Every structure is written in structure tokens, then in C-alpha cells.
């Protein structure tokens, strides 16, 4: 029998990355400051995790301007959406297995 734990995605072990993915699942597009506010993390910390998600192809970055200020927005890629959905399914299966 396959151990359901194998389906868990290591990338989502981290709470901040998990938070970013959760927020992006229900918000098509969101900028850096809103993410920072909601997750209550520092700039550097959030940037590192976002870069990690981007490197793994789960998150898309779009750089734009509002007036003269830079406005960087983030959204999920197809792969990111699938990876996160799989991760949640696995978590659910584990819970069901326990019960």
C-alpha cells in the first residue's frame, strides 16, 4: 500500500509558503504589500519564499508601476494550482486515514 505521506509537497512544509499559496488560490492577483500585511512577515522573509515558489514554477511575478512606484503582483501558475490542490487532497486523505 502506498503511504499517503508521499503525496505531501515538501515546498509547502513552510507556513509562509503555505500562506502565500492559500491566498493566491482565492485571489487572482495580489501585490507584495498586501501579502506582507496578511501574513505579517518581514520584506526579506517574504521575498525569499516568493522567490522559492517562483523558482519552482508555482508562482508568476508581474512587475508594473502605479505612478512612479513599482507594483509587483503575484499569481498562481497552472502547475502551482495543481501542486497545491494535490497537497490539500493528500492532507485530507491522511486525516481520513486516521479516523
Amino acid at each position, binding site marked *: 500500500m502506498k503511504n499517503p505521506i508521499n503525496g505531501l509537497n515538501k515546498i509547502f512544509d513552510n507556513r509562509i509558503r*503555505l*500562506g502565500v499559496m*492559500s*491566498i493566491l488560490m482565492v*485571489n487572482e492577483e495580489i501585490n507584495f504589500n*498586501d501579502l506582507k500585511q*496578511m501574513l505579517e512577515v518581514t520584506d526579506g522573509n517574504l521575498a525569499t519564499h516568493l522567490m522559492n515558489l517562483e523558482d519552482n514554477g508555482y508562482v508568476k511575478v508581474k512587475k508594473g508601476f502605479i505612478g512612479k512606484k513599482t507594483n509587483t503582483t503575484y499569481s498562481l501558475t497552472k502547475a502551482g494550482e495543481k501542486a497545491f490542490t494535490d497537497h490539500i487532497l493528500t492532507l485530507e486523505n491522511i*486525516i481520513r486515514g486516521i479516523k
Partner: protein
Amino acid sequence: MNEQNQPLETIQDIKRIMERSSRFISLSGLSGITAGVFALIGAYFAYDWIYEYDIRFNSQRFTVNDFQNLKMNLLVMAVAVLAAALISALYFTWLRARHTHRQFWDHTSKRLLINLIIPLIAGGLFILAMLQQDEWRFVVPACLLFYGLALVNAGKFTLNEVRYLGYLEIVLGLINTQYIGYGLYFWAAGFGLLHIVYGVFMWWKYERKV
């Protein structure tokens, strides 16, 4: 033990973050109550003016200006009621956001506002066009309908109960179409009474213990 609960906790975390990042939940019930009270005060004055106008209409002293004056007074009062309701709604919501340490102006409140305002502006322009054609009988039903639709639309981005208030406004607006001439009563019921009932309910449910 800890290992067993972890997946459940993670799922609960995910749910909580999704909920919090997609809905603006700082709307205060007190805003509903004050908006309702302003609406009732406005309706009372409107009733008074219309009553006086009727008396003058049947007397010798009636002039064409009387009708213009009444229209102007009603319009100014409608704008004043709207402004007072909006300001008090914003104030109590701002207070509540501060109280619960949440952001007042973030992407959830922006999205809520946009979704609320689009049906309202469309409705407002539609009603102005009706008045332009001297079609005043359906003004109140249209107010209630468009407001209800705006609330149903906005309900997706804030507390779910807002949607039910929207359904009630829509039903009231539709019933009003069958009782033309009683617009002021329906207006007072929809914007006054329903707001107060809704506000008390919401305050009771979410804010009482805070």
C-alpha cells in the same frame, strides 16, 4: 499525537487564510442601524412635505413653483440622507477595523467597494434617466432593486448575511411595483426598517462580546 493533528491544523490554517484574504469582515452592524435611522428621518420629512404640497395643491394659492420646490427639496434630502448614511457606515466600519486590529483599506475592502458600486452607479443613472422622462412611479422600486442587486453582488466579498439583506431588498422592490403610489412606505421599510433590523442582528451576532 502531535503528528496526527498536524494535517488537520494545516487544513484549518489554509481555510482561515483563504477566508481572511478574500472577504472584508470589518463591516459594523452599527453602520446599518445609523443608516436606517437616517433613512427613517428622511422619510418622515418627505412625508410631511408631500402632505403639505397636497394641501396647497387643492387650495387657491397653488403655483407652478410649488412643484419645483418640492422636487428640489426631495432631491436635496435624498442626497443628504445618502451622504449621512455613507459617512456613518464608513466611520463605524473604520472603528471596528481599528478595534479588531484589521486593515480598513486593503485589497478586500477595495474589491468589496468596486462590486458594490457598479450596480449602484448603473441604477443611479437609470433612475435619473427615468426622472428625465418624468417617469417617477418606478423610482422607489428601482432604488430597492438596484440596491438589492448591489448587496447580493457584494455579499461574495464580505459577510454572507449582506447577501440576505440584498434578497429582501429585491423582493421588497418587486412587491412595490404592484403598489405604485406607496413608494415612500416601501422606501422607509427597505432603507430604514430593514437596515435597522439587519444592523441589530449583525451587531448582536458579531460585535456584542467585543
